[in-house]
């Protein structure tokens, strides 16, 4: 009598064992799913709040996949943030004043029925690395220049535009560049042609002095950590090789570059003609569609 009952019991427990197995699997799956969701959400919260706060700036993978980024660069006080707010809030009658930026402004904007992710990078030299992190994924670059102060700041402005154009990704992607001569409302403002000529002269001189520069610090001096360091080193070496813009022996000209470069005049002061703004918007729309 004792024997059948144990058999029954084992048969019964076999069935429940199967259920238990399925049960635990389900629990594990659900747990993993919840964990994944929580992770995504926490990452989203962090990146949102970190994007809001300044100082911490690692581009998340989601941001890197964007293909509609328009990057606004240029020297300090050129009017990048003003342009950014004009494009961002086109329906406002009262546009806000702007001051020196100390963090990146990045947001989506509707421009001529297309969505552009506008990125306004502060002009201060300290944000060079932010600029270098955004340039590779840019679909178009707007280089804003203060036409009234260009002659005094020609060296730093030329260095800036050189850095932008010599960026490896900008060269390989042949990113279109819009050179915006801003502050045309001022009578002292230089015209398009004058700005182009000044910049080309200065870049010409810069080419030569850059080639004459010293080699950068190699990883060999700092304790190397293996292949990763070597790869970075090669990338840096490649960057140096492609640092030279235009053709050797021929005076630099913007037409020598593979990137389509356009020059526009603009004045972003309310009340003055806004035709500049419309041209900018159409350029952005064209760039995003091409």
């Amino acid at each position, binding site marked *: 009598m004792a024997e059948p009952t144990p058999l029954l019991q084992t048969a019964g427990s076999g069935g429940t064992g199967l259920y238990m197995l399925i049960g635990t699997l389900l629990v594990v799956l659900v747990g993993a799913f919840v964990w994944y969701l*929580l992770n995504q*959400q*926490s*990452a*989203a*919260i*962090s990146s949102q*709040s*970190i*994007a*809001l*706060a*300044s*100082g*911490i*700036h*690692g581009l998340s993978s989601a941001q890197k996949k964007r293909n509609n980024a328009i990057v606004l660069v240029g020297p*300090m006080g050129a009017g990048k*943030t003003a342009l950014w*707010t004009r494009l961002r*809030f086109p*329906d*406002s009658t*009262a*546009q*806000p004043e*702007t*001051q*020196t*930026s*100390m*963090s*990146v*402004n*990045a*947001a*989506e904007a509707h421009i001529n029925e297309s*969505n552009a992710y506008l990125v306004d990078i*502060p002009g*201060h*030299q*300290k944000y*060079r*690395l932010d600029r270098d992190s955004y340039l590779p994924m840019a679909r178009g670059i707007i280089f804003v220049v203060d036409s009234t102060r260009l002659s005094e700041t020609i060296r730093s402005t030329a*260095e800036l535009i050189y850095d932008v154009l010599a960026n490896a990704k900008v060269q390989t992607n042949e990113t279109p560049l819009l050179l915006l001569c801003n502050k045309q409302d001022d009578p002292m403002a230089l015209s398009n042609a004058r700005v182009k000529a000044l910049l080309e002269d200065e870049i010409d001189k*810069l080419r030569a*002095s*850059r080639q*004459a*520069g*010293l*080699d950068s*610090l190699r*990883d060999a*001096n*700092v*304790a190397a*950590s293996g292949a990763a360091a070597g790869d*970075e080193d090669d990338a*840096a070496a490649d960057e140096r090789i492609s640092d030279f813009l235009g053709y050797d022996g021929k005076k630099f000209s913007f037409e020598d570059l593979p990137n389509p470069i356009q020059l526009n005049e603009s004045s972003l002061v309310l009340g003055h003609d806004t035709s500049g703004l419309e041209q900018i918007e159409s350029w952005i729309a064209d760039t995003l569609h091409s």
Partner: protein
Amino acid sequence: MLDQFTIATKGGIVLWTKAYAPITHRPVDSLVQDVLIQSTRLDNSSNKYHAGTYSLQWTFANELNVIFIAVYQKILQLPYLEDLLHHVKKHFVTRFQQEIKLLVDSECTVFPDFGDFEQEFEQIWRAVEDRETKERIAGKQGGVPRKFEDTKKFQTTAKGAKLELEELAQSSEMDLGRKTGGKMRSWNERGLAASDDSKGATAASKKGKKGKKAKENRVWDGQVTKESMKALDFSSEKDSEHEGGSHAIASLVDERARGERTVDGIYEVADVAERSVSGDSDSFVLLGDSALDNDNKEDSNDRAASGGIFGIFKSLTSGRVLTADVLAEPMARMREHLANKNVAADVAEEICQTVARGMIGVRVGGLQNIRRLVEQSMETALTRILTPVSSTDIIRDIEQAQLQHRPYTMAFVGVNGVGKSTNLSKVCYWLLQNNKRVLIAACDTFRSGAVEQLRVHVRNLRALSESNQNVEIFERGYGKDSATIAKDAIAFGAANSFDVVLIDTAGRMQDNEPLMCALAKLVSVNSPDKILFVGEALVGNEAVDQLEKFNQALRDFSGQSKPRHIDGIILTKFDTIDDRVGAALSMTYTTGQPIIFVGTGQTYTDLRKMNVSQVIRALLRV
């Protein structure tokens, strides 16, 4: 009182501003450029900045990316400003939180209106001002004036001194237990009374002054008095002395710092005590926004109160706000890591504080790794510090000077033995490779062999370059004034169309005032285009001291209204350090000037340009 109050986003969009007087020269822009971006060390620790005729104070609301700036005349002192900033921030943030968030929302196409804030601002300002005046009045007339007995003057009068003596006598009686008689005190007594020595001595001297001096027997040389014999008798064993003895001996050893005895009976010294972290977290609380911290503490208390597991789940989904105590531990570890990499102690401290201040109040997801975030923000902060602000393109500068038909002058300064002459010749080699004509001015007239050393370098460089005419040395021997030699050298260079003049100075310690004076004179007489401070990469905390004192000396002893300061840094002996590149960070942080050259060896080609990303990687690598 206030000239302007501005509320703006960190991205540069002005949300609300009110000007009470016309503002000139845009002080807010200079504040942002000089202080907030470059994070140069402020002379005083307060959040105050001077620009032209204005003073500025500011505060941040980190979680919403907003900065509040108050501008007022420099001559005024407004003690209520910090209060005002704090309250305005609280009110603005609570009222316009939604509108601020709309700024990053792509659906919004109209700029939100913040004009309603004006009325509220006026109210807050009036309230803060009233409260401050009330406190000031209350403070002046506050309560009853002090009693005469409580003032210092009373203590110098006879009555006051007597009272003090009585007090002292009471306290010392308990310790000593007996009178201190005789001229010489025994060793035990001295040991006992060591702690009360000052009190006892003053009490005794005062007693002596007050009371009549008893007639004492004259002690001749060679004679020994009975009292002194007793005092010199160390053989006797008295009960009270025994206690006193052990008391004295016990004071020689600090029980807490005792080491351990190992199993073998060997006594091992205790380890150096670790710096306590609690003190630092206190300073964080002081630095960070106290109101926000209070709010956060309330939030976390609420959360904790709402049930253990449920609370955890809530924090997981909605994230938590970073506070000072959460950040204290990772920050302390980061500071230690930086110190291990040879970053100067105060520089590491300040950088960690700045980074922590920027992170307080930020909301992060529940599963986010705080340490990862700290590392990322640290990387950004360090990169920003090390990235040069001004151009480091020397060749371009030289061409600019050529257009003005004058030679480009560079002065090499530094303490003894860092490698000025060696790196000067490396720079000279590089310039020769770029077809510049270089004149080396031997202004080290102190150290024996300095001029000969440069002569040898010039000989080598001539052999290495194609034309012999491109490099020359200008020297006037030893013992002469270096400022005049430099002046003659520059005149010679201009007359003979040299492109660059490199001035080699004598090494000098930063504390040596006459030598620093002489250096400041050389700089002010000749005003070189670039003053390069040569520092070795091996230096640690000394780097900060050297640079500060050099800059200060150039400022104080120059006698000019706009004194020069160090324009660039040459980091030498870089091949001797492996990973410990902290000196680069300390030096750049202290001066704000870029590292122009890096010396990596002793041959002429061992000169490199600074690579910021590489140094950052080496710094943050474990």
